[in-house]
């Protein structure tokens, strides 16, 4: 049952045009712009930012942008064992989401909609996640499998094997190169995220200003897409990109690098592919006695607080953390035979100076490594579950 098939043939995905395109698309679709830049996806994501999502804005995790609903009656069933293969909980964003997900599960368990919730965590090891998924398939008693893949391309065969087992499969966050799953849930995506920050820098900096790009790791598709989009936008601007540096997301490393750049010359803006350690970057300016840069952070509270405190010019792009609730809800919908979007694109709005204070106020009691748009305020565990992790 677990025979691998060749990864989705290029024609299929390419022909499907706008819908199955996820971040980290087939290499065949690659353009001259680089391995991680697919213009069609880029254009689509940028456009999706302006599309009004369907659904109630009060529950953004149930909203969908341009959904194409698929029929799920074939999966309707009474069984309610939910299996979740998690890539890891190795960073604060994932931890926040994971708590939200558990809270959501608890609610549904109390309602009797979900029975057992079985989780395996691959600790960022692709091979382990493949084994984990395999173990779910082999166990044979999962009524749905949720997968948060650790890497797009590498998990594809395993996801295909899961689909082939006949169980409804839900993929969220990072994608895979197949559309065999019932639904693929994700916020608009990396291009949009990267573009939000880059456009902000272009708008707020004088032509000729200098920008330093700080990145976490090379080779992670979600992150590479963000950078690809930023590069695309910077290329059309008159900003000077001083360099792009890998920091491992380590605050000390970030501060070292920024300090060294400041020591070499002026830095007017900072673009980051993820907000981890954004505060450390800002502090480097403070400690060396430089003016604050125009800053691209993330909706992590430490950054929002620093931003408010210093009053610098900044934006916090958001990679919607509330997406961790959606797959759970999707599973119950599928079991009930309700329609779900085949590609469930969730809204993803950056936090700007206007709504920053509102988010800060709402999350005033939350720890600093919490994400403002975590979307779990209505869950019964709020706020304690997120506060004392």
């Amino acid at each position: 049952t677990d025979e691998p098939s060749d990864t989705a043939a290029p024609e299929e995905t390419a022909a499907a045009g706008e819908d199955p395109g996820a971040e980290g698309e087939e290499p065949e679709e690659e353009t001259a712009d680089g391995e991680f830049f697919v213009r069609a996806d880029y254009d689509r994501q940028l456009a999706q930012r302006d599309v009004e999502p369907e659904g109630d804005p009060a529950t953004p995790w149930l909203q969908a942008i341009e959904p194409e609903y698929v029929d799920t009656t074939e999966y309707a069933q009474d069984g309610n064992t939910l299996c979740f293969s998690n890539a890891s909980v190795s960073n604060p964003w994932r931890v926040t989401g994971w708590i939200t997900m558990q809270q959501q599960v608890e609610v549904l368990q109390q309602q009797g909609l979900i029975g057992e919730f079985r989780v395996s965590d691959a600790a960022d090891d692709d091979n382990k996640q493949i084994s984990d998924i395999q173990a779910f398939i082999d166990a044979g008693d999962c009524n749905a499998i949720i997968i948060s893949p650790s890497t797009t391309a590498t998990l594809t065969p395993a996801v295909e094997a899961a689909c082939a087992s006949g169980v409804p499969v839900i993929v969220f966050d990072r994608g895979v190169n197949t559309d065999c799953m019932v639904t693929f849930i994700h916020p608009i995506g990396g291009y949009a995220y990267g573009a939000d920050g880059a456009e902000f820098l272009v708008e707020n900096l004088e032509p000729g200003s200098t920008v330093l790009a700080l990145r976490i790791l090379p080779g992670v598709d979600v992150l590479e897409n963000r950078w690809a989009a930023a590069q695309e936008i910077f290329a059309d601007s008159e900003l000077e990109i001083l360099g792009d540096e890998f920091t491992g997301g380590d605050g000390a490393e970030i501060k070292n690098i920024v300090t060294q750049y400041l020591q070499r010359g002026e830095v007017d803006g900072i673009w980051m592919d993820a907000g981890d350690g954004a505060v450390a970057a800002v502090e480097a300016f403070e400690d060396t006695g430089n003016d604050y840069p125009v800053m691209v952070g993330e909706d992590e509270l430490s950054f929002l607080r620093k931003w408010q405190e210093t009053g610098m010019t900044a934006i916090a792009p958001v990679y919607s953390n509330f997406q961790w609730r959606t797959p759970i809800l999707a599973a119950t919908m599928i079991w009930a035979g309700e329609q779900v979007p085949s590609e469930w694109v969730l809204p993803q709005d950056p936090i700007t100076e206007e709504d920053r204070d509102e988010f800060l106020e709402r999350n005033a009691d939350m720890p600093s490594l919490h994400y403002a748009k975590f979307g779990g305020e209505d869950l019964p565990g709020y706020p304690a579950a997120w506060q004392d992790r």
Partner: protein
Amino acid sequence: MTVTAPRPTPQRSAGSRAGDLLARVFGGGSATVFALLIVVFAAIFIVNPSFAEPPSLMAFLKQAAPLMILAIGQYFVIVSGEFDLSVGSLVGAQVVIAAALIDGEEGRTVPVILLMLGFGILVGLVNGLITTLLKVQSFITTLGMMLVLYGAIRLWTGGAPTGALSEAFRQPGRGGIDMAVVRQLPWALMILVGIVIIAVAVMRSSYGRTLVATGDNERAAGFSGVRVWRVRTLAFVISSVLATLAAILIGGYAGVTAQVGQGLEFTAITAVVLGGVVLGGGRGSVVAAMAGALTLEALFVLFNQLELPSTIRPAVQGVIIIAAVAYAARERARPRHHQEVPSQPQPNEA
């Protein structure tokens, strides 16, 4: 070398002592690191003369201090013939502990720092006692400790750090005394200097001598009355305590992030070896180990100044480390250093 006519061993003059010290610091495999350090600094100054300005140097030393402190701690363990792979995890754990327990409240700073020191001592004791009493190779002991700390801390905090550091906690790593010329004399630098002085003094004390002897030949040391288990365990405790101090500086310098400390153990060991300290114990000086750390940090700065693409930096770093260690190994095998020692009486006069 051997002569039959008796000749007394000469008394050591003060000058010969100084000579000995110089020889010990710069001799053997350690010369390489000082040469490399000078070359790297020269290169940085050429690429970017403004780096030589005092404020820049101070900023550099501030960021280099934690690794240098870690290297000093690692030196104690390595020279005694062991490894400490747990320091990276320990640094991470300590920062997370600090953030979680202080939780932004200034008043808790000092008690929490004391608690962290206690925790550091405990970790060192466990490492040391498992290695010496249970006879588990330290590579494995500290590898286990690395896993345990990594897991336990995340288990405790649910995966990502929680809480926040206080301003006071951040001072040692971030702040300093504002003054002319250097702009700011970092606390980190002063702490570093203090630690170096203490470390040099310790290495010259009876404890330091027995430590090196233990690393050189554990059996002979034991037969000479050295309590090998105690000496080694203390080395692990020193390493853990210094890792704790490094954690205080790193946490102070950059705040909490989930990744803090990751991979520092390898960097620290590399630094120590780069300093000409021999893995397996018994050879090398603490000053050279520290110089190894400084060189490594300077190398990172140089890469940045040269605008080397960041992806290629590990490769260059790898080449330089291998080359430097290979060169030092050759140097050690060469006669020069054993004869250059000043004030050595010439052999064979009869």
